[in-house]
């Protein structure tokens, strides 16, 4: 029986292309937020697609988008490990530290009437990027990649309840940062 490398199967390649390539912008967006560096993000996305193709035969779900995100997360872990000599902490290591030390000084209680004014995209991006992990990835998956809670749970391999509490925490941190920003003179 002739053995051909499954990766050379043109039909598989076509199916993979049709299924996975439409999400390239989504995957790239998540990579940008997780790694905060355009060229690292590009490398991670390439690696993600290579791995996805390799495992495409065994892919049975979840939906394609969470599946790709799950692979990307693993790729990013490797990147965090590579950076480990640098002070940047990895996805899960940061969680504990974030609980203890919020990134922002506590904002004084704001007047109830104060509203969150619209901010420009670059300011919001900066605030989101500054969120600690794993809250940032949950937040980006929900607000920017538009995943449902179930899909986020699939992508990050955590129960939906964990997703919900992380999201609540992420939004609360972002709200504080947002208000702190507001109080600073421009």
């Amino acid at each position, binding site marked *: 029986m002739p053995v051909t490398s499954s*990766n*050379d*199967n*043109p*039909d*598989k*390649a*076509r199916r*993979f*292309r049709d299924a996975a*390539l439409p999400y*390239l*912008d*989504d*995957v*790239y*967006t998540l990579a*940008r937020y997780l790694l905060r560096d355009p060229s690292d993000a*590009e490398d991670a*996305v*390439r690696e993600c*697609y*290579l791995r996805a*193709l390799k495992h495409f035969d065994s892919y049975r779900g979840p939906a394609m988008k969470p599946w790709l995100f799950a692979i990307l997360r693993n790729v990013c872990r490797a990147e965090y490990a590579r950076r480990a000599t640098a002070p940047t902490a990895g996805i899960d290591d940061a969680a504990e530290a974030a609980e203890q030390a919020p990134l922002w000084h506590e904002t004084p209680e704001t007047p*109830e009437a104060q*509203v*969150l*004014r*619209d*901010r*420009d*995209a670059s300011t*919001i*991006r900066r605030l*989101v990027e500054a969120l600690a992990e794993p809250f940032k990835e949950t937040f980006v998956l*929900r*607000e*920017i990649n538009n995943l*449902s*809670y179930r899909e986020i749970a699939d992508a990050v391999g955590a129960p939906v309840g964990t997703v*919900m*509490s992380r*999201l*609540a925490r992420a*939004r609360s941190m*972002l*709200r504080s940062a*947002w208000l702190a920003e507001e109080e600073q003179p421009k």
Partner: protein
Amino acid sequence: MTCDEAEILLHALIDGELDAGHAREVEAHVAECPRCAEALVAYRQMSQAIAAADLRYTAPPALRRRIEASLPQTRAPSRRAVLRGFAMGSAVSALAATGLVAIVLRNDDEQRIMSEVVSAHLRSLQAGHLTDVISTDQHTVKPWFNGKLDVSPPVIDLTAQGFTLVGGRLDYVDARAIGAVVYRRRQHVINLFVAQTPTIERRAAKTETIQGFNIRRWSEGGLNYWAVSDIGGDELTEFGEKFQTAMQANKER
């Protein structure tokens, strides 16, 4: 419901993840609790501001090409596959060995794309699907392409020069989405197809005839252009020249 519970659940309410029963419970709590009510309003505003700001990134076209190039080709090793490898720079040694062959392949591929462009032109006339966005205003047509393609096709109003802008359309050539800007000259339709090139070399315009249609093809500023129409070759040449002149003028302005 306690504030601790509501603090988590009101996010699910904002995200539309709660069933009707729980949604009512959260709403009932919020109605009685000013603190949670304030939080709900604040988070809603924040979500709306985030949605409005569009915080997504677009993958660089080069990244897309590199990933596509790393996929196995959909057809058995064809001349096209060799060509694509060449275009991506991954078959440089093969090129060095057989430079002449590469040039031949390249022409062959170009001919194939040209006939695909003619087919796309024909489809646009037959299917009653000439335009996805109908407007004679370049400032309406150009933004319409945003987010639909990995390039932004230049849209130039040439009405004063005798070519009326009709609109724009998404089409497929070479198995890729491609932008088509549609013009009219009297009763004749001109489709101007725009796609990116792997190189930024500038290539002079050339007018050819395929299946009775005239095609004028040129490359400039990292984009490939194919203008297709049944108008005469000289008029199509005039169109191409006026388009390029207007592009130049736009750049210098």
